[in-house]
């Protein structure tokens, strides 16, 4: 496989940031060169464990997702009967909890748990990012932050589905769909928290707002809370649940939210950049893929030419050599300065 410019960029950054040993990089170079350029051949032929093969989400992210979706569903379950209090279906739902007065208390309590989950998430993200930056391992392409490539990926993916391309785009750890969903949820949650707090603490909100906007703000919040809730519920039901439960290849569910792991075929198909990182980091994965390619005769017929073109590895070797020279020079200078001191 001849690596694309983008894939080379991702791999180059990863090899340097994670200080991948030269031996591993060499192994990866050979593996990449024999990988077929038609990526479909790879993900269609690997064996995946339904509960996941490759690590994706930390326990913190899984807890945050669990807290958010449980509170979200219960908030919808309690909030809708409060909003549509006089609807025929609202009465029994409110009655189930002991009346609308109880539903309101339950709703607010759940909201507090959801806010906690949001705070936990934001603090976790900040801490994780600070840690990665301090270790020199931060790569914006590997984060959920939208970049221009996502728009290109979206167009390319649609083109692929419409039959206009041979392969799906090489997407990173978070593809365009996940970024849309994440920011929709983040925006929705923020709207719900701000609007909900404007109902609970109207005096506070209006004390910080100019007189001329006070009424519009409150009414806009009153409009936003149920609209956003309903939209979120419908998006979750018709899009998110479809994507993770019903879409082809995902039925009956992806286990990622529980195990934190993604299946191998899914990683290769939709997160190829992250799979390259996995190959660089995990010797077992390299060995496995090499075995599959050899066993099924999927080696690239142009492996030797491709290897010549994949200059990322040669660059990395040069980078390591320069590093070593720098280190030796620094050590020699240190020895020299110590001797001079004597």
């Amino acid at each position, binding site marked *: 496989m001849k690596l694309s410019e983008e894939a080379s960029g991702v791999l180059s950054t990863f090899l340097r940031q994670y200080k991948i040993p030269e031996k591993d990089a060499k192994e990866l170079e050979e593996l990449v060169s024999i990988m077929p350029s038609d990526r*479909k051949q790879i*993900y*269609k*032929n*690997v*064996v*995946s*464990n*339904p509960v996941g093969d490759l690590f994706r989400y930390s326990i913190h992210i899984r807890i945050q997702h669990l807290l958010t979706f449980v509170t979200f569903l219960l908030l919808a379950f309690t909030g809708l009967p409060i909003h549509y*209090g*006089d609807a025929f279906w609202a009465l029994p739902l409110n009655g189930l909890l002991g*009346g*609308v*007065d109880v539903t*309101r208390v339950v709703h607010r309590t759940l909201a507090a748990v959801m806010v906690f989950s949001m705070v936990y998430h934001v603090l976790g993200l900040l801490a994780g990012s600070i840690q990665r930056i301090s270790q020199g391992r931060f790569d914006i392409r590997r984060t959920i932050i939208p970049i221009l490539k996502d728009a290109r990926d979206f167009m390319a*993916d*649609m083109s*692929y*589905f*419409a*039959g206009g391309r*041979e392969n799906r785009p090489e997407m990173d750890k978070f593809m365009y*769909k996940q970024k*849309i969903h994440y920011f*929709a949820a983040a925006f929705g949650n923020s709207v719900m928290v701000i609007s909900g707090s404007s*109902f609970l603490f*109207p*005096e506070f909100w*209006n*004390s910080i*707002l*100019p*007189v*001329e906007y*006070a*009424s*519009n703000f*409150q*009414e*806009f919040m*009153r*409009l*936003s809370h149920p*609209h956003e809730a*309903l*939209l979120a519920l*419908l*998006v979750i039901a*018709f*899009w998110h649940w*479809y*994507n993770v439960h019903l*879409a*082809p*290849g995902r*039925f*009956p569910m992806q286990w990622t939210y529980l195990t934190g792991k993604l*299946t191998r*075929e899914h990683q290769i198909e939709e997160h190829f950049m992250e799979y390259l990182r996995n190959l660089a980091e995990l010797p077992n994965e390299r060995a496995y893929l090499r075995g599959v390619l050899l066993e099924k005769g999927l080696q690239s017929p142009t492996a030797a030419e491709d290897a010549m073109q994949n200059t990322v590895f040669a660059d990395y070797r040069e980078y390591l050599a320069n590093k070593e020279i720098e280190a030796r020079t620094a050590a020699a200078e240190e020895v020299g300065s110590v001797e001079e001191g004597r």
Partner: protein
Amino acid sequence: MKKIGLLISAFIITLGMPAISQAFVDDEACLMCHKYPKMGRVTSEGFQKSYYVMPEVFSKTVHRNVPCRDCHYYIKQLPHRPVEEGVRCDRACHSITNPSTGKPFNHKSIYNTFKESVHGREKKETGLENDKPYCIDCHTNPLYNPDEDVPPPHIIERCVVCHEDDKFANRWYNHTSRRIREVKRDSQEIVALCSRCHEDQEMLQRHKKAADEEGREIGEKYVIAAESYKKSFHGKVAQYGDKNVANCLDCHASAENYYMSVHELLPSRDPKSPVNAVNRTKTCQKCHETADQSYAMIDPHPTFRKELNKFNYYSETVYNWVGNVALFALMLMSLVETIGRKRDGVSWALRRGTTWRGRGFRKNKR
């Protein structure tokens, strides 16, 4: 056997007789006719009217000591003539003395206040004025709390040491304890009461049209007052059964002189109205202690009608569009993806280590 039969017959007859309370003295012989439950008629407008008086109930009401003809003063003979005007509440009750003045008791003071209010009217009115409420549209002849039937003996025993007549002591106890406990309607009842007229769109439009034609000023929310209140936070909480949430009168009547003020409701453009722009913050502060001028700007009668609130109207329109477009765009994206991947040969579930068991029907370009 005959005796037993007579006894049973007497018992049945007794059961069928109207029960007349010992406490109620019918000196004017009104019950001669009005004791019959079917005493009534159907008016020319088709309303069924009942003239049945239940003495055992009447004797527990606040007007129990007022003889019928103090209010129904136009009854001069029995059987009486058809009633033309009915009871006016501004008349003096000659049989009851106001203990504070020594003069016959009357409701004139509150009646005159009411007449000055936006609801003010005469007993007999025609046209638009007749739509306004008269005293009895809001006030019934309330019962004393049945629990007060027997005032605490230790109080009455003490009263009769000087006041001799225990009936007087009972009356005094009923009267004062009712005021001390501040018996008044809860929010749901008040909203229901006001909504009887303020939700009658036919009537409201009639008044709005007349005001527009005459060039009279009328509140812009006049026609949606009840409807918009019910959609507000106050309205919703009232609907959920909260007894203390702000109802119509909590804002539109002054808290300082509540019982008088509810009778002199004024339009919000009147500077004396508690909901006039100059008084609004103070009115909000009755419940929302930290409310400021910004807070008082929150509309307690929110509406999404374009002619009344363009901001709300367009916000809702944009929200609907954005929501629908976003949802359908995402669903369309899923559909395209599904078709694309199915064509590629993916199966629905991951089994035996792969979802790519199918052959797919994608034509390879190469």
